[in-house]
């Protein structure tokens, strides 16, 4: 890496000051607050508190509900990311080949992007409503004993389905622009060198899309970790029995509904550490391999 050294003056700091201010108010301050709170034991009304060192963390880590939520979060995030990336890649490749009516086709595929996660959750809720939901009825009429209100796997399926559906359009846009960024002549050269379209895809197109895929992997994991809150809150609310509660949702449930501020803060600190580790891992080990 080449680095250019400039004369030091106050001006650059002035330019980044607004950004620093925003980060400080909306991230550093609350994070510090959470860190401090995770060492406190508070009564339910927030009237008195006691410094308890790592007891909140011990409680969290030894609780079976947290472990279950952590496992669900990992499975959920991996499935949502992989499925939404795979589906949108498939759609983007197909859409890229369409010549007639391409614009309409692409616009329709992007529409989902405009839908907020809670609205997606609401739509899912309606489709899986046991009384009038079309998908609920459809699954049951096919002979599945589908019941997401009682069955944890079915509930997980519902949440993953909605989360993936919501994310596909975002990924689709990025993949489509990534595909259009591949020079036409490179693809034509490949047509002369390789007869099989599948092989061409895996040896030329996919490696050239690797930087896009990596970027989307980071974005999608973050999405699955944090932004699916709205979907879960509107559709299953973590039911049945907390089996579809991601760690973020559990932080909210324990802290704001269960009024266990210390425990909730400890969970959010753990979550922060997990995400940091994940991010460092992604950029350290994966990013190097995807750029050409």
């Amino acid at each position, binding site marked *: 890496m080449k680095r250019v050294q400039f004369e030091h003056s106050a001006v650059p700091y002035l330019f980044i000051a607004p950004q620093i201010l925003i980060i400080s108010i909306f991230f550093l301050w609350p994070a510090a607050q959470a860190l401090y709170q995770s060492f406190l034991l508070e009564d339910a009304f927030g009237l008195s508190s006691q410094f308890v060192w790592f007891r909140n963390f011990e409680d969290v880590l030894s609780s079976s509900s947290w472990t279950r939520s952590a496992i669900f979060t990992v499975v959920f995030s991996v499935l949502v990311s992989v499925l939404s990336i795979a589906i949108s890649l498939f759609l983007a490749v197909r859409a890229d080949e369409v010549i007639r009516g391409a614009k309409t086709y692409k616009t329709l595929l992007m529409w989902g992007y405009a839908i907020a996660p809670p609205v997606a959750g609401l739509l899912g809720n309606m489709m899986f409503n046991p009384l009038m939901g079309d998908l609920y009825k459809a699954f049951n009429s096919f002979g599945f004993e589908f019941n997401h209100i009682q069955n944890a796997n079915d509930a997980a399926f519902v949440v993953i389905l909605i989360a993936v559906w919501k994310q596909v359009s975002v990924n689709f846009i990025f993949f489509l622009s990534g595909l259009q960024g591949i020079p036409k002549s490179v693809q034509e050269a490949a047509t002369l060198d*390789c007869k099989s379209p599948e092989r061409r895809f895996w040896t030329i197109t996919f490696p*050239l899309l690797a930087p896009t895929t990596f970027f989307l992997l980071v974005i999608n994991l973050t999405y699955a970790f944090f932004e699916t809150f709205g979907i879960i809150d509107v559709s299953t609310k973590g039911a049945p029995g907390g089996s579809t509660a991601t760690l973020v949702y559990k932080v909210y449930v324990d802290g704001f509904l269960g009024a266990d501020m210390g425990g909730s803060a400890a969970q959010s600190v753990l979550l922060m550490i997990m995400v940091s580790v994940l991010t460092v891992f992604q950029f350290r080990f994966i990013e190097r391999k995807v750029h*050409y």
Partner: protein
Amino acid sequence: MATVTLNQAQKTYPNGFKAIHGIDLKIEDGEFTVLVGPSGCGKSTLLRMIAGLESISDGEISIDDKVVNKIAPADRDIAMVFQNYALYPHMNNYDNMAYGLKNRGFSKAEIDTKVREAARILQLDDHLERKPRQLSGGQRQRVAMGRAIVRQPKVFLFDEPLSNLDAKLRVDMRLEIKNLQQRLGITSVYVTHDQVEAMTLADRLIVMNGGIAEQIGSPIDIYEKPASQFVAGFIGSPAMNFLKGKVSDDKKHVTVGDGVMLDLDHDVEAGREVTVGIRPEHLDLLQDGKGRINAPVRMVESLGAETLVYLDFGANADNVTLRLQGTHQFAKGDQLSLSVPANKIHLFDIDSGKRL
């Protein structure tokens, strides 16, 4: 070793635009054919039709007497060099060259021999492990050539391969391509808009205009006997001078400008209006001032080895370009006296532009 035959090959795009109006052509085994023409004349489209990157709307294209209209590009046994190199950016140069061979099921050892041989010919030995982006434009173009020659295809197709290179490199690569093609003896089709490339490389030149082949012939034939005013203006630099003229009653002269009579050696009916074409290098400067054409100098361009003089000719001050060997000192307004041998005068039909 192969021949390429085009039988009324046509291309019509879905929007109704007809890019190629039906071309008949037989490219002999080992021949270097150059397609030349202005932008949008259909030369690249025709090349891409041979490659299989564009479908053929009508007519047939055959390689070695086998119609390839419906054959996939990879199965036509052709290799193409693109204008912007079109190397695979994520592969190193070795893999770029080996890719086509791998997909055709060659063994690792065979691939290695072929790639190293091509690299040796193109002086790329030291760059095989690098990625294309680490090479200069000329080296990248060489890798692209290497990718074409390792396959030992029946036909080489070149789509303006030198356009992205700087002037000096272009001359070097031009010689290299000619050399390589002669050594390998592979039938080649080369597209360019650069007439110097066209003249120097071609065994046979095809001048295209508006989707038709205006003239097919050896470069010198085309230079000496252009079939139309378009070809005459396109081949040769600086471009041929065109003047309006009228054939005299005795058919021995043609009148141009303000009654200037030029000797004629053609069989054209008396009194016919024609376009007279004279190449800048065929005008002779007379020191005694007794030439038929007399005109003042408008501008001079000295190139060292030659001098280009632009003259205002006749009442309409038509531009006439004169090309002289060596250096000359002229000032604006100097009167020059010129003559032109009768056998260097070209006549074209005033409407159709066809050679008379």
